[in-house]
């Protein structure tokens, strides 16, 4: 009995935490499949979180808009993310900058810009006020009432459902559509794609902006569901985790999602273990550590030589011989 409750609760919380990672990992998938390393997921999530929180605040707290407020914030975040990704594409696609370096730059820009704006807008405080209207969980009729299972799977934030949708859609796009085929080609052998009449730069810009949009959606998810505000540590490294999830998932949509869920368990276990008094067996620090440790072990074990897109990280110069 007790254990069922724990399990059901663990799953539920896992999904809550994993959602943002799923968004970001899927975002990273687009840009990395096109051959552009995206270590900037962190920054893109940050921008998404800020935009989402800020817009939702003005819509909800100020304009007194109803349940639409978080949705408005969410959409705004998606747009902002796509735009914020542009410098990365500009530097690393157009100007052949080292993609990791430009990614690092973008991450600095994100922290700086969001907190600067936050202080500018919210009278000097490094965070947005707490939202009156965040997302609240959806319960799927009937299913949600199934004991344990209902709470575990069918009671979740709308964003979680959107995330799963995004994964499925991405899988379809990547594996079935011409866009997917070309995306893959551009990431594997840009010159071949170019000579086949595909615009490598075009594809990479689109891919990077898509990744910005999705990563931002992830950031917004956190701000609008779990923290209900934006502050300096709303994202705190989750972009990097999403990147790990992507690689962990071998640049494949569903595997990446599973990896993200796996990381979600980590954060979930933290509280679940404490509340159910399991920390007397495992020090809480080890629970925090666990997923990262396991990732390394797994990568070192068999996923180690997961073949990344061949051209990943190498800028494409038309003129090059």
């Amino acid at each position, binding site marked *: 009995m007790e254990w069922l*409750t724990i399990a059901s*609760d663990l799953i*539920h*919380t896992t999904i*809550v*935490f994993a959602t943002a990672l799923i968004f970001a990992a899927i975002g990273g998938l687009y840009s990395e499949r096109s051959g552009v390393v995206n270590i900037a997921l962190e920054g893109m999530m940050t921008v998404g979180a800020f935009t989402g929180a800020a817009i939702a605040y003005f819509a909800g707290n100020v304009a007194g808009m109803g349940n639409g407020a978080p949705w408005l914030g969410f959409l705004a975040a998606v747009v902002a993310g796509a735009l914020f990704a542009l410098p990365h594409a500009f530097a690393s696609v157009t100007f052949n900058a080292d993609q990791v370096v430009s990614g690092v730059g973008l991450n600095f820009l994100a922290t700086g810009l969001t907190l600067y704006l936050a*202080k500018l807008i*919210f*009278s*000097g*405080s*490094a*965070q947005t*006020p*707490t939202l009156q209207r*965040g997302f*609240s*969980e959806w*319960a799927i009729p009937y299913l949600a009432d199934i004991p344990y299972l209902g*709470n575990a799977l069918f009671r979740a934030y709308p964003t979680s459902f959107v995330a799963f949708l995004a994964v499925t859609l991405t899988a379809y796009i990547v594996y079935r559509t011409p866009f997917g085929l070309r995306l893959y080609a551009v990431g594997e052998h840009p010159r071949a794609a170019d000579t086949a009449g595909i615009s490598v730069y075009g594809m990479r810009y689109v891919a990077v902006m898509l990744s910005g949009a999705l990563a931002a959606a992830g950031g917004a998810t*956190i701000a609008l569901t*779990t*923290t*209900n*505000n934006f*502050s*300096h*540590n*709303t994202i705190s490294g989750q972009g990097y985790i999403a990147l790990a999830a992507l690689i962990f998932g071998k640049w494949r949509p569903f595997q990446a999602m599973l990896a993200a869920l796996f990381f979600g368990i980590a*954060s*979930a276990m*933290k*509280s*679940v273990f*404490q*509340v*159910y008094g399991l920390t007397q067996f495992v020090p*809480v620090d080890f629970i925090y550590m666990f997923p990262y440790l396991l990732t390394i072990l797994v990568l070192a074990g068999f996923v180690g030589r997961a073949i990344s897109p061949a051209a990943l990280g190498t800028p494409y110069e038309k003129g090059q011989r």
Partner: protein
Amino acid sequence: GNAANEGAGNTGPADQVTDGTDDGRPERTVEISVAMVTDVGGVNDNSFNQSAWEGLQQFAEEHGGKVDYLQSQNDADYVPNLNQFVKSGRDLTWGIGYMMSDAIRQVANQNPESKLGIVDDVVDAPNVVSVTFKENDGGFLVGVVAGMMTKTNKIGFVGGSEIPVITRFEAGFKAGIEAANPDAQLIVNYTGAFDAPDQGKAAASTIYNSGADIIFHAAGSTGDGVFGQAKELRNAGRDVWVIGVDKDQAQTFGNDITLTSMIKRVDVAVRTISEEVMRDEFKGGEVVTLGLKENGVGLPEHNPNLPQEVLDKVEEFKQRIIDGELTVPENP
């Protein structure tokens, strides 16, 4: 530095942001200046830091004078930020929070002529006033409330990190529950951070799901997550409550989910000490401990959610503690 000093006074959004003196009242001849340094939390954490900052702002409202704050990026910033104010000749500089005590001690020793204050910890230096609170006493009272109000006999406590200040909350809360309702069970959860609402939310979610109906949080803005979760469950039709901390958090999160709050009058403390400085009555080396008697801790005046008999019970225990008949443990 001097330039910084001039800069501090001059125009620009700086003053709108942090000064109390933005209403056109006639300037005092000798303007008193008080400043505070916060940890990474910042002055909008809905609780501790915010309360302190409000104290300073009220002070500026009433007496004019210039108030200012710096938010630290990390613990390396504490000392230089404090020094920034001390060296620019602030009449009094506050370190808000337990984390600051080492820094305060250092700055105090190095600048004997300066006046400093620390909240939540004791720094014995001739030029430092230390303000501590009897969180355990206050915690006891809300513990009584929780013990009497719970319908499920399961109650939660969400703490920031496991430091003496916070464990005093827990200890008092625990004792209070036992005193009022021996068969109620307490679930304790430390999130390890004062600025992680998502962790607070996860903790709350788990605690409520395990059957608790009241959670008392002492975790700064991490507690926001507890309120967030309670709001949601309430929307989902569950009868759950939160007991706020530091301020009357009903004002922020509404009476519908805020059962009551364990108020910790950081604002009052900060204001009164600042006033002492203004009247040149600063007693360096003094340790001010604020408990129930001094109204340093306690419940808000208005408790729309609490039935009279609960309030009476609380009042009764309060008296017994003040009269010393009952001593509340400091450690859980």
